[in-house]
Protein backbone atom coordinates (compact mmCIF):
# COMPACT_ATOMS: atom_id res chain seq x y z
CA UNK A 1 0.00 0.00 0.00
CA UNK A 2 1.19 3.47 -0.78
CA UNK A 3 2.15 5.44 2.25
CA UNK A 4 -0.27 8.29 2.54
CA UNK A 5 0.03 9.02 6.23
CA UNK A 6 -3.46 7.68 6.77
CA UNK A 7 -4.05 4.66 8.97
CA UNK A 8 -6.17 1.73 7.86
CA UNK A 9 -8.92 2.98 10.17
CA UNK A 10 -8.96 6.39 8.47
CA UNK A 11 -9.19 4.66 5.13
CA UNK A 12 -12.13 2.62 6.31
CA UNK A 13 -13.95 5.74 7.44
CA UNK A 14 -13.10 7.55 4.21
CA UNK A 15 -14.55 4.69 2.23
CA UNK A 16 -17.61 4.56 4.44
CA UNK A 17 -18.34 8.23 3.80
CA UNK A 18 -18.15 7.65 0.07
CA UNK A 19 -20.22 4.49 0.33
CA UNK A 20 -22.85 6.38 2.28
CA UNK A 21 -23.26 8.92 -0.52
CA UNK A 22 -23.50 6.18 -3.11
CA UNK A 23 -26.01 4.10 -1.12
CA UNK A 24 -28.11 7.19 -0.34
CA UNK A 25 -28.35 8.27 -3.95
CA UNK A 26 -28.65 4.89 -5.63
CA UNK A 27 -29.94 2.43 -3.04
CA UNK A 28 -28.31 -0.85 -2.17
CA UNK A 29 -29.12 -3.46 -4.76
CA UNK A 30 -28.12 -1.48 -7.84
CA UNK A 31 -24.74 -0.46 -6.40
CA UNK A 32 -21.67 -2.64 -6.94
CA UNK A 33 -18.36 -2.77 -5.11
CA UNK A 34 -16.76 -1.45 -8.34
CA UNK A 35 -18.96 1.64 -8.18
CA UNK A 36 -17.89 2.34 -4.60
CA UNK A 37 -14.19 1.68 -5.33
CA UNK A 38 -14.30 4.04 -8.31
CA UNK A 39 -16.02 6.79 -6.32
CA UNK A 40 -13.60 6.36 -3.39
CA UNK A 41 -10.60 6.37 -5.75
CA UNK A 42 -9.30 2.99 -4.64
CA UNK A 43 -8.88 -0.26 -6.48
CA UNK A 44 -11.49 -2.95 -6.09
CA UNK A 45 -8.82 -5.20 -4.56
CA UNK A 46 -7.96 -2.77 -1.82
CA UNK A 47 -11.66 -2.14 -1.16
CA UNK A 48 -12.02 -5.88 -0.58
CA UNK A 49 -9.08 -5.68 1.83
CA UNK A 50 -11.19 -3.48 4.05
CA UNK A 51 -14.56 -5.07 3.52
CA UNK A 52 -15.06 -8.62 2.41
CA UNK A 53 -18.47 -7.92 0.85
CA UNK A 54 -20.92 -5.17 -0.02
CA UNK A 55 -23.16 -6.28 2.84
CA UNK A 56 -20.26 -6.00 5.28
CA UNK A 57 -19.51 -2.49 4.03
CA UNK A 58 -23.18 -1.63 4.34
CA UNK A 59 -23.33 -3.04 7.88
CA UNK A 60 -20.28 -0.97 8.86
CA UNK A 61 -21.84 2.13 7.32
CA UNK A 62 -25.11 1.57 9.17
CA UNK A 63 -23.32 1.11 12.49
CA UNK A 64 -21.34 4.28 11.91
CA UNK A 65 -24.46 6.21 10.90
CA UNK A 66 -26.47 4.89 13.85
CA UNK A 67 -23.73 5.87 16.32
CA UNK A 68 -23.54 9.38 14.88
CA UNK A 69 -27.30 9.79 14.86
CA UNK A 70 -27.57 8.74 18.51
CA UNK A 71 -24.80 11.13 19.54
CA UNK A 72 -26.50 13.98 17.71
CA UNK A 73 -29.88 13.19 19.23
CA UNK A 74 -28.36 13.01 22.70
CA UNK A 75 -26.78 16.47 22.35
CA UNK A 76 -29.85 18.07 20.77
CA UNK A 77 -32.24 16.64 23.34
CA UNK A 78 -30.00 17.77 26.21
CA UNK A 79 -29.95 21.31 24.83
CA UNK A 80 -33.73 21.71 25.22
CA UNK A 81 -35.71 22.15 28.42
CA UNK A 82 -39.28 21.52 27.34
CA UNK A 83 -40.40 18.03 26.39
CA UNK A 84 -42.17 19.39 23.34
CA UNK A 85 -38.98 21.08 22.15
CA UNK A 86 -37.01 17.90 22.73
CA UNK A 87 -39.37 16.03 20.43
CA UNK A 88 -39.06 18.79 17.84
CA UNK A 89 -35.28 18.53 18.15
CA UNK A 90 -35.51 14.96 16.85
CA UNK A 91 -36.71 16.25 13.50
CA UNK A 92 -33.37 17.36 12.08
CA UNK A 93 -31.24 14.26 12.81
CA UNK A 94 -34.12 12.04 11.74
CA UNK A 95 -34.49 13.79 8.41
CA UNK A 96 -30.76 13.98 7.88
CA UNK A 97 -30.34 10.24 8.40
CA UNK A 98 -33.62 9.47 6.74
CA UNK A 99 -31.90 8.14 3.57
CA UNK A 100 -29.94 5.59 5.61
CA UNK A 101 -33.16 4.22 7.00
CA UNK A 102 -34.80 4.20 3.59
CA UNK A 103 -31.92 2.16 2.17
CA UNK A 104 -31.99 -0.05 5.23
CA UNK A 105 -35.70 -0.77 4.81
CA UNK A 106 -35.02 -1.77 1.18
CA UNK A 107 -32.19 -4.07 2.22
CA UNK A 108 -34.32 -5.59 4.97
CA UNK A 109 -37.18 -6.18 2.55
CA UNK A 110 -35.02 -8.10 0.20
CA UNK A 111 -33.47 -10.12 2.98
CA UNK A 112 -33.32 -13.15 0.73
CA UNK A 113 -30.86 -11.41 -1.58
CA UNK A 114 -28.24 -11.73 1.12
CA UNK A 115 -28.01 -15.43 0.43
CA UNK A 116 -24.79 -16.97 1.65
CA UNK A 117 -24.20 -14.07 4.03
CA UNK A 118 -26.02 -15.15 7.17
CA UNK A 119 -23.14 -14.17 9.43
CA UNK A 120 -22.90 -10.60 8.20
CA UNK A 121 -26.67 -10.37 8.12
CA UNK A 122 -26.88 -11.35 11.78
CA UNK A 123 -24.25 -8.71 12.62
CA UNK A 124 -26.26 -6.10 10.74
CA UNK A 125 -29.45 -7.12 12.52
CA UNK A 126 -27.59 -6.88 15.82
CA UNK A 127 -26.48 -3.33 14.97
CA UNK A 128 -30.09 -2.41 14.27
CA UNK A 129 -31.28 -3.99 17.51
CA UNK A 130 -28.52 -2.14 19.40
CA UNK A 131 -29.64 1.10 17.78
CA UNK A 132 -33.19 0.40 18.86
CA UNK A 133 -32.16 -0.50 22.41
CA UNK A 134 -29.96 2.58 22.85
CA UNK A 135 -32.64 4.82 21.37
CA UNK A 136 -35.19 3.44 23.81
CA UNK A 137 -32.78 3.97 26.73
CA UNK A 138 -32.18 7.55 25.68
CA UNK A 139 -35.92 8.19 25.38
CA UNK A 140 -36.61 6.60 28.77
CA UNK A 141 -34.27 9.04 30.50
CA UNK A 142 -35.73 11.91 28.49
CA UNK A 143 -39.24 10.89 29.55
CA UNK A 144 -38.26 10.41 33.19
CA UNK A 145 -36.76 13.90 33.30
CA UNK A 146 -39.91 15.40 31.79
CA UNK A 147 -41.99 13.49 34.33
CA UNK A 148 -39.89 14.88 37.18
CA UNK A 149 -40.33 18.36 35.73
CA UNK A 150 -44.11 17.88 35.66
CA UNK A 151 -44.24 18.39 31.89
CA UNK A 152 -45.77 15.05 31.04
CA UNK A 153 -48.22 12.67 32.64
CA UNK A 154 -46.60 10.45 35.23
CA UNK A 155 -49.05 7.55 35.29
CA UNK A 156 -47.88 6.04 32.00
CA UNK A 157 -44.97 3.61 31.76
CA UNK A 158 -41.75 5.31 30.63
CA UNK A 159 -40.58 2.20 28.81
CA UNK A 160 -43.81 1.87 26.84
CA UNK A 161 -43.71 5.55 25.96
CA UNK A 162 -40.07 5.29 24.89
CA UNK A 163 -40.86 2.23 22.74
CA UNK A 164 -43.63 4.19 21.10
CA UNK A 165 -41.38 7.11 20.37
CA UNK A 166 -38.71 4.80 18.97
CA UNK A 167 -41.39 3.11 16.88
CA UNK A 168 -42.41 6.45 15.40
CA UNK A 169 -38.80 7.29 14.72
CA UNK A 170 -38.14 4.12 12.78
CA UNK A 171 -41.26 4.65 10.65
CA UNK A 172 -40.26 8.15 9.56
CA UNK A 173 -38.07 6.47 6.96
CA UNK A 174 -41.01 4.61 5.49
CA UNK A 175 -43.72 7.23 5.72
CA UNK A 176 -41.92 10.53 5.39
CA UNK A 177 -41.92 14.00 6.83
CA UNK A 178 -45.65 14.78 7.07
CA UNK A 179 -46.01 11.71 9.18
CA UNK A 180 -43.52 13.17 11.67
CA UNK A 181 -45.83 16.15 12.22
CA UNK A 182 -48.90 14.02 12.84
CA UNK A 183 -47.05 11.53 15.03
CA UNK A 184 -45.61 14.35 17.11
CA UNK A 185 -48.97 16.07 17.51
CA UNK A 186 -50.75 12.85 18.50
CA UNK A 187 -47.98 11.80 20.85
CA UNK A 188 -48.08 15.16 22.60
CA UNK A 189 -51.77 16.05 22.56
CA UNK A 190 -53.80 13.06 21.37
CA UNK A 191 -56.60 12.84 18.82
CA UNK A 192 -59.66 13.59 20.89
CA UNK A 193 -61.71 16.66 20.20
CA UNK A 194 -61.18 19.19 22.91
CA UNK A 195 -63.05 17.62 25.77
CA UNK A 196 -64.90 19.43 28.52
CA UNK A 197 -62.04 19.09 30.99
CA UNK A 198 -59.63 20.57 28.51
CA UNK A 199 -61.88 23.16 26.90
CA UNK A 200 -61.50 25.36 29.96
CA UNK A 201 -57.78 25.54 29.29
CA UNK A 202 -58.18 26.04 25.56
CA UNK A 203 -60.76 28.80 25.90
CA UNK A 204 -58.37 30.58 28.25
CA UNK A 205 -55.76 30.25 25.51
CA UNK A 206 -58.16 31.59 22.85
CA UNK A 207 -59.09 34.55 24.95
CA UNK A 208 -55.49 35.66 25.14
Amino acid at each position, binding site marked *: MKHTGLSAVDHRFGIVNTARDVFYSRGYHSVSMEDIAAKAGVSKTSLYNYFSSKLELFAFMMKHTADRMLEEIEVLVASQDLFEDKIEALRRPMLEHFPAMVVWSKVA*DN*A*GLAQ*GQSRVWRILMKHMRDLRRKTVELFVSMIDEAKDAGQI*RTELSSVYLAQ*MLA*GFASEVAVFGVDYFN*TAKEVFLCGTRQISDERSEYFSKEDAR
Partner: protein
Amino acid sequence: MEKAKERKPAEVRKFEILHAAYELFTEKDYHVVSMDDVAAKVGISKAAVYLYFSSKLELFFGMIDQGVDRLIAGLEEAFDDPDNSELEKKLDAANAALQHYAPIFRVTQQLMSSGMPDNDFPPQLVAQFMRKMHGRRSKLQELFNNVFTIAQQNGEVRSDLNTTELATVFGVYGMLMTRSEVSYETAKEILFHGILTSQEKR
Protein backbone atom coordinates in the same frame (compact mmCIF):
# COMPACT_ATOMS: atom_id res chain seq x y z
CA MET B 1 -48.99 -46.51 5.42
CA GLU B 2 -51.17 -49.31 6.74
CA LYS B 3 -54.49 -47.99 5.65
CA ALA B 4 -55.37 -45.73 2.80
CA LYS B 5 -56.64 -42.51 4.36
CA GLU B 6 -59.91 -41.16 3.28
CA ARG B 7 -59.28 -38.57 0.62
CA LYS B 8 -60.23 -35.13 1.68
CA PRO B 9 -60.90 -32.20 -0.63
CA ALA B 10 -57.69 -30.34 -1.44
CA GLU B 11 -58.86 -27.16 0.27
CA VAL B 12 -59.59 -29.00 3.51
CA ARG B 13 -56.23 -30.74 3.39
CA LYS B 14 -54.42 -27.51 2.72
CA PHE B 15 -56.18 -25.89 5.65
CA GLU B 16 -55.15 -28.77 7.93
CA ILE B 17 -51.54 -28.43 6.84
CA LEU B 18 -51.54 -24.66 7.42
CA HIS B 19 -53.14 -25.16 10.81
CA ALA B 20 -50.51 -27.73 11.82
CA ALA B 21 -47.81 -25.37 10.54
CA TYR B 22 -49.22 -22.55 12.65
CA GLU B 23 -49.12 -24.68 15.79
CA LEU B 24 -45.58 -25.91 15.12
CA PHE B 25 -43.97 -22.66 13.96
CA THR B 26 -45.46 -20.60 16.79
CA GLU B 27 -44.36 -23.13 19.36
CA LYS B 28 -40.87 -24.03 18.10
CA ASP B 29 -38.11 -22.23 16.24
CA TYR B 30 -38.42 -22.26 12.44
CA HIS B 31 -35.11 -24.05 12.07
CA VAL B 32 -36.05 -27.04 14.23
CA VAL B 33 -39.46 -27.66 12.67
CA SER B 34 -39.28 -30.20 9.85
CA MET B 35 -41.70 -31.13 7.10
CA ASP B 36 -41.85 -34.55 8.79
CA ASP B 37 -43.20 -32.88 11.93
CA VAL B 38 -45.87 -31.13 9.90
CA ALA B 39 -46.83 -34.36 8.10
CA ALA B 40 -46.99 -36.25 11.41
CA LYS B 41 -49.19 -33.60 12.97
CA VAL B 42 -51.69 -33.79 10.11
CA GLY B 43 -51.40 -37.57 9.91
CA ILE B 44 -50.36 -37.70 6.26
CA SER B 45 -47.15 -38.56 4.45
CA LYS B 46 -44.40 -36.03 3.88
CA ALA B 47 -44.89 -36.46 0.14
CA ALA B 48 -48.50 -35.35 0.57
CA VAL B 49 -47.36 -32.16 2.31
CA TYR B 50 -45.02 -31.44 -0.61
CA LEU B 51 -47.98 -31.67 -2.96
CA TYR B 52 -49.25 -28.44 -1.44
CA PHE B 53 -46.04 -26.67 -0.45
CA SER B 54 -42.80 -27.25 -2.25
CA SER B 55 -40.58 -26.19 0.66
CA LYS B 56 -40.67 -25.45 4.36
CA LEU B 57 -40.20 -21.75 3.64
CA GLU B 58 -43.12 -21.76 1.23
CA LEU B 59 -45.25 -23.40 3.89
CA PHE B 60 -44.10 -20.87 6.46
CA PHE B 61 -44.93 -17.96 4.16
CA GLY B 62 -48.25 -19.59 3.29
CA MET B 63 -49.07 -19.82 6.97
CA ILE B 64 -48.23 -16.12 7.56
CA ASP B 65 -50.17 -15.13 4.48
CA GLN B 66 -53.28 -16.97 5.62
CA GLY B 67 -52.99 -15.45 9.11
CA VAL B 68 -52.78 -11.91 7.77
CA ASP B 69 -55.73 -12.54 5.43
CA ARG B 70 -57.84 -13.73 8.33
CA LEU B 71 -56.74 -10.79 10.45
CA ILE B 72 -57.89 -8.43 7.70
CA ALA B 73 -61.20 -10.28 7.30
CA GLY B 74 -61.69 -10.14 11.09
CA LEU B 75 -61.01 -6.40 11.17
CA GLU B 76 -63.37 -5.71 8.28
CA GLU B 77 -66.12 -7.59 10.06
CA ALA B 78 -65.47 -5.83 13.38
CA PHE B 79 -65.42 -2.39 11.77
CA ASP B 80 -68.71 -3.05 9.94
CA ASP B 81 -70.42 -4.23 13.12
CA PRO B 82 -73.04 -1.60 14.08
CA ASP B 83 -72.24 -2.26 17.75
CA ASN B 84 -68.79 -0.84 17.08
CA SER B 85 -69.84 2.55 15.79
CA GLU B 86 -67.67 4.35 18.36
CA LEU B 87 -63.98 4.75 17.59
CA GLU B 88 -62.94 3.26 20.92
CA LYS B 89 -65.01 0.12 20.32
CA LYS B 90 -63.43 -0.30 16.88
CA LEU B 91 -59.95 0.05 18.31
CA ASP B 92 -60.73 -2.38 21.14
CA ALA B 93 -61.87 -4.91 18.55
CA ALA B 94 -58.76 -4.24 16.45
CA ASN B 95 -56.59 -4.80 19.48
CA ALA B 96 -58.26 -8.13 20.24
CA ALA B 97 -57.67 -9.24 16.64
CA LEU B 98 -54.04 -8.07 16.67
CA GLN B 99 -53.35 -9.87 19.93
CA HIS B 100 -54.91 -13.01 18.54
CA TYR B 101 -52.67 -12.97 15.49
CA ALA B 102 -49.60 -11.62 17.31
CA PRO B 103 -47.72 -14.96 17.12
CA ILE B 104 -47.47 -14.78 13.33
CA PHE B 105 -45.88 -11.33 13.49
CA ARG B 106 -43.54 -12.51 16.22
CA VAL B 107 -42.31 -15.56 14.30
CA THR B 108 -41.83 -13.58 11.08
CA GLN B 109 -39.74 -11.05 12.96
CA GLN B 110 -37.72 -13.84 14.58
CA LEU B 111 -37.05 -15.54 11.27
CA MET B 112 -35.90 -12.32 9.62
CA SER B 113 -33.50 -11.40 12.41
CA SER B 114 -32.05 -14.84 13.01
CA GLY B 115 -30.38 -14.67 9.63
CA MET B 116 -31.09 -16.86 6.70
CA PRO B 117 -29.60 -20.31 6.65
CA ASP B 118 -27.52 -20.36 3.50
CA ASN B 119 -29.10 -21.95 0.46
CA ASP B 120 -32.43 -22.27 2.19
CA PHE B 121 -33.84 -18.88 1.26
CA PRO B 122 -34.48 -18.45 -2.45
CA PRO B 123 -34.33 -14.68 -3.02
CA GLN B 124 -37.29 -14.66 -5.42
CA LEU B 125 -39.51 -16.38 -2.88
CA VAL B 126 -38.57 -13.90 -0.15
CA ALA B 127 -39.00 -10.92 -2.47
CA GLN B 128 -42.39 -12.22 -3.60
CA PHE B 129 -43.49 -12.68 0.01
CA MET B 130 -42.31 -9.19 0.91
CA ARG B 131 -44.26 -7.67 -1.98
CA LYS B 132 -47.35 -9.49 -0.81
CA MET B 133 -46.86 -8.23 2.75
CA HIS B 134 -46.52 -4.68 1.47
CA GLY B 135 -49.86 -5.08 -0.25
CA ARG B 136 -51.43 -6.32 2.99
CA ARG B 137 -49.92 -3.44 4.86
CA SER B 138 -51.52 -0.98 2.44
CA LYS B 139 -54.80 -2.79 2.91
CA LEU B 140 -54.54 -2.47 6.70
CA GLN B 141 -53.60 1.16 6.29
CA GLU B 142 -56.71 1.70 4.17
CA LEU B 143 -58.95 0.01 6.74
CA PHE B 144 -57.67 2.21 9.56
CA ASN B 145 -57.79 5.29 7.38
CA ASN B 146 -61.49 4.56 6.97
CA VAL B 147 -61.97 4.12 10.71
CA PHE B 148 -60.37 7.49 11.46
CA THR B 149 -62.21 9.23 8.62
CA ILE B 150 -65.55 8.05 10.01
CA ALA B 151 -64.50 9.03 13.54
CA GLN B 152 -63.54 12.45 12.25
CA GLN B 153 -66.92 12.86 10.52
CA ASN B 154 -68.61 11.88 13.79
CA GLY B 155 -66.66 14.53 15.64
CA GLU B 156 -64.73 12.00 17.72
CA VAL B 157 -61.35 12.98 16.31
CA ARG B 158 -59.78 16.41 15.86
CA SER B 159 -60.49 17.69 12.40
CA ASP B 160 -57.00 19.16 11.90
CA LEU B 161 -55.32 15.73 11.75
CA ASN B 162 -54.70 13.89 8.50
CA THR B 163 -56.45 10.53 8.69
CA THR B 164 -53.97 8.72 6.43
CA GLU B 165 -51.17 9.68 8.77
CA LEU B 166 -53.29 8.80 11.79
CA ALA B 167 -53.71 5.34 10.31
CA THR B 168 -49.92 5.11 10.06
CA VAL B 169 -49.51 6.26 13.64
CA PHE B 170 -51.98 3.62 14.78
CA GLY B 171 -50.15 1.10 12.59
CA VAL B 172 -47.02 1.76 14.63
CA TYR B 173 -48.95 1.15 17.86
CA GLY B 174 -50.32 -2.01 16.37
CA MET B 175 -46.89 -3.25 15.41
CA LEU B 176 -45.51 -2.50 18.87
CA MET B 177 -48.50 -4.16 20.51
CA THR B 178 -48.04 -7.39 18.60
CA ARG B 179 -44.47 -7.48 19.94
CA SER B 180 -45.68 -6.66 23.48
CA GLU B 181 -43.47 -3.58 23.48
CA VAL B 182 -46.40 -1.36 24.37
CA SER B 183 -49.59 -2.16 26.26
CA TYR B 184 -52.84 -1.42 24.47
CA GLU B 185 -54.02 0.73 27.38
CA THR B 186 -50.97 3.00 27.12
CA ALA B 187 -51.22 3.20 23.33
CA LYS B 188 -54.92 4.06 23.49
CA GLU B 189 -54.39 6.65 26.19
CA ILE B 190 -51.68 8.38 24.13
CA LEU B 191 -53.70 8.15 20.94
CA PHE B 192 -56.71 9.79 22.61
CA HIS B 193 -55.15 12.26 25.01
CA GLY B 194 -51.42 12.55 24.35
CA ILE B 195 -48.51 12.59 26.74
CA LEU B 196 -48.45 16.22 27.88
CA THR B 197 -50.01 17.26 31.17
CA SER B 198 -52.97 19.54 30.55
CA GLN B 199 -51.00 22.56 31.81
CA GLU B 200 -48.35 22.01 29.18
CA LYS B 201 -50.70 21.62 26.25
CA ARG B 202 -50.20 24.46 23.81
